């Protein structure tokens, strides 16, 4: 395991170049391309705001900010999981021609989609300012949450990417799964609206529920995130990463034969 860690350090420029490639291709080397990448969560924000404040008469104040604080990190999750799942299959020609640590492919997807998320945060700050939401020093805790989410997403794609090599319809199931996951995560609703005994379970089995609620506490409510709760979420993510890594190394062995 130590030698693999050294190898990943040796290939650090590959990670950087893969992330740069993803971003350049996504933005097509233009500022407009970057704005375009934010369109998806912003449009969803408009739709949800219309549905919940106009059609359903939902009284949650500053609903656009309320929903955007969750939509942006969710957008990271959904793009990372979808693209991460197909990352090995998409790069089959390369994997069959050149040796490099294959783990870097799903990892770089999490990083590039994460960079896209972080670059989009100023848009969220803009909406916070427009709706006069409080800017507190607790915003400085955002990097911790970003780190926890990155660890969690890496764990997920490390399992799904090789699985998609063996079972090519994994990506189809992931698409359906992401929709279900979206509804099961407190994005367009608050965790406080959930029946209490189920809310506890939601936190336990869905790390995204915890992560999204933490973002919302900081950026929407402007209050203090519970450090113990955050630590627990982080520990869960790390444990999942170890499991994901072990599964990846196990499945990686016969990968070349199936690509």
């Amino acid at each position, binding site marked *: 395991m130590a030698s693999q860690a050294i190898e990943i350090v040796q290939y650090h420029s590959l990670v950087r170049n893969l992330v740069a490639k993803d971003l350049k291709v996504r933005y097509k080397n233009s500022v407009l391309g970057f704005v375009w990448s934010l369109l998806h969560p912003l449009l969803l924000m408009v739709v949800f705001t219309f549905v919940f404040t106009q059609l359903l008469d939902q009284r949650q104040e500053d609903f656009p900010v309320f929903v955007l604080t969750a939509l942006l990190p969710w957008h990271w999750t959904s793009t990372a999981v979808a693209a991460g799942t197909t990352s090995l299959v998409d790069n089959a020609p390369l994997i069959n021609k050149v040796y490099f640590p294959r783990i870097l492919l799903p990892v770089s997807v999490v990083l590039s989609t994460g960079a896209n998320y972080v670059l989009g945060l100023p848009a969220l700050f803009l909406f916070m300012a427009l709706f006069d939401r409080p800017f507190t020093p607790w915003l400085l805790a955002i990097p911790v949450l970003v780190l926890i989410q990155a660890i969690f997403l890496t764990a997920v794609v490390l399992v799904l990417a090789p699985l998609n090599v063996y079972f090519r319809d994994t990506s189809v199931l992931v698409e359906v799964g992401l929709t279900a996951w979206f509804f099961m995560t407190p994005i367009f609703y608050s965790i406080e609206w959930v029946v209490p005994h189920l809310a506890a379970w939601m936190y336990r089995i869905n790390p995204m529920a915890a992560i999204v609620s933490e973002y919302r506490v900081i950026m929407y409510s402007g209050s203090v995130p519970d450090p113990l709760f955050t630590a627990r979420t982080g520990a869960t993510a790390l444990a999942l990463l170890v499991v994901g890594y072990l599964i990846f190394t196990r499945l990686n062995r016969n990968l*070349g034969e199936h690509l």
Partner: protein
Amino acid sequence: MRRLGGAAPRGDIAVELRGVSRRFRLHHETRTSFQDWFIGLVRPRGKGEEFWALRDISFSLRRGESLGILGRNGAGKSTLLKLITRVLEPTSGEIIVNGRTLAMLELGAGFHPELSGRDNVYLNGSIYGYSRRQMAEKFDRIVAFAELERFIDTPVKHYSLGMFMRLGFSIAVHLDPDILVIDEVLSVGDAAFQRKGYQALRDLKANGTTILFVSHWPELVREFCDRAILLQEGRLIDNGPVDAVAAHYERMLQAQPGEAAILRVRAVDAAGRVVEAVPSGRDLRIEVLLRVPPSGGGDLLLAIDLYDRDGNHLFGSTGRLADLGAPTVGEDPATRRVCAVIHQLPVAPTTLTIAATLQHPGATGLDEVDRQDTEVEVIAPWSVRERGLLRLDHAWEWEPADAAADALPELRVEAER
């Protein structure tokens, strides 16, 4: 399995394979899915046939040597390269690679069409583990060699195939690998660039790069390689100087199936390695590789004859193929290996010509079907006191010393009388 990085504990060995085999499972449906898996629960199907792409391959390559890998399509050449470049893992056996390995299996593998040539140079370099700074040093030379100065900031999707290949080739030769693995990629671009490409490879070779070169063109292999191995049906059937192996391969290509032929004759040591010299008085093993028609060729005769430097016929022996029961080589039942062992070769130092002849008992005696010769040097600590054609096992003996001692006192007694 073990791979070694920069350190070279085993002296000047660049690549070594020990008993390497690789098995594939043939999946009848190329695409597996959960759907198939569920259907399989209800209606089980076979686990898929096994197929050994490579069987028990062993060879080693010293630093700076260049090795040609010959064989027909499906002989296992590509699998071998993928094992050496770590794209595939062996099913069993050990592969040791000392040094930075770079594979030219497909030029421009890993190029992204939307990125510029410049970005692709850096991306491609990092796929091989080179940092941005290392690539920046080589960048100008790479672009100049590929003759793409004007187009380096254009996305490579607008490149012609020739430009694409030129850039890929240029990156590969400028990365200064310790070991370069090439899979017939030199049909790059126009004739002028091809010449330049060959020259670049020659320069790399002159600078001590170890080269593994796969081709089914024996001519190219002859030009670039010192040594060659020949694969057939996943087995290594020949390993030696490039001219001999290429000749063997050419004979293999020319041999008509159904016709008996001698594919190769050579002197080997007890482990089966080719030897160019044998000490006088030691065992000489002669290995003959035969192609036998499917009918079995039961009445065919195999003759081994030995001639010295002056053409004297020293010895000859004939065996019936039916009695030999030679083991099959590889999966091809038509190829047989026969070994003749001459115990304690009693020949004086000379250049020994070994002739293997396949004969057919015809109406008027014996018809020669095929014949192949090889030469082996017989060496010995030959002293001035030995001469002649043969080196016979001999010893000088005095009358036994104790007998002489017994006789002496008697003489003395006689003298005293």
